[in-house]
């Protein structure tokens, strides 16, 4: 690994249209947060892909571990009662 200090890595999230969530689009390097936003504007919205930008220094992101993915996500598998189709209602009932 290099000894020199480099510009830190930032993760970029873009809201593509008003009303949508910000979505991760990639990463880039910048010396500070403002520069990260400007760089993100130049790199990831050259073709009008966005209306709002979030930047987070990559090292501040905590990710779930794939080793735990079974314990984290499989239990939701059988919780069908969280979905509307679990409940049977006669067709005559409207607006539900």
């Amino acid at each position: 690994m290099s000894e020199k200090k480099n510009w830190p890595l930032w993760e970029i999230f873009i809201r593509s249209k008003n009303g949508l969530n910000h979505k991760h689009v990639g990463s880039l390097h910048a010396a500070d947060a403002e520069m990260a936003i400007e760089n993100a504007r130049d790199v990831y919205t050259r073709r009008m892909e966005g209306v709002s930008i979030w930047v987070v220094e990559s090292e501040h992101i905590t990710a779930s571990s794939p080793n735990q993915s079974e314990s984290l996500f499989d239990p939701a598998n059988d919780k069908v009662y969280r979905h509307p189709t679990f409940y049977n209602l006669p067709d005559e009932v409207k607006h539900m």
Partner: protein
Amino acid sequence: MKAPTDYAHLEDQFQARIDAEEKIEPKDWMPDKYRKTLIRQISQHAHSEIVGMLPEGNWITRAPSLRRKVALLAKVQDEAGHGLYLYGAAETLGAERDDLLDELHRGEAKYSSIFNYPTLSWADIGAIGWLVDGAAIMNQVPLCRCSYGPYARAMVRVCKEESFHQRQGYEIMLTLARGTEAQKKMAQDALNRWWWPSLMMFGPNDAESKHTAQSMAWKIKRFTNDELRQRFVDITAPQAEFLGLTIPDEHLKYNEETGHYGFGPIDWDEFWQVVSGEGPCNRQRLKARRRAHEEGQWVRDAALAHAEKRRQRQAAKNDQKVA
């Protein structure tokens, strides 16, 4: 540490996921060789994008109309962007961009040899867009389905943006081909010089390609070099005909039986010569990249130093508030 038996089991599981067309993500377990192969391929790809800016960048200040100038600027800028996406994908595998750049600058990393050829006339910008970007697209579209998630996603973005590049090049060629005698000559000369290097872009013949089998099994690669090369020739030959230009290959001929164009032998000596660093522009390209990086050092340092000063000032302000 895992026991060796566990390791074999992990590899089987890994291969099973690949076979099921599941994407591999950065934190997933992966064989060391898979990681290394990807870092090598993605970084070579990224280097190709940024070295590729140089031959075309050459003509930005000389573009013959303002319309052509903005198109070329936007195209070369896209290449910087593509380099950036790809370095980003490599960084998800734990390879830092700066280390990868150091390898490039030391002359240890490879990049696409095509960019070691000179751009001598405006028609070369047309030929690069048409042929080089055409060949690149052929290589890149299958990579959108590559097994490694961040690489595949970067490639989706790249391919989306690349779609105008080839059209830009072909339009330049078309304008020249329909122009004056001098312009036609310029276009034919560009085709003569860029045709064979473009065919070499697909890499050595399958029999010679040492990485192909494993990369196909890992679904990093979806088609062999020769398959892609053939597809390129099949698509490009009629395009040349439409331009009224002659592809510099006396063996090039459509074969009714196979439905493919046959073509003459590639000069692999030239290929290996350029790959080994002895092409017409290898030295200039590396020098230009190295210089940009070295001369940018004080700029990068200054931005970091300023960011640090601001952090400290902010921290001091916050301390005062608390006190």
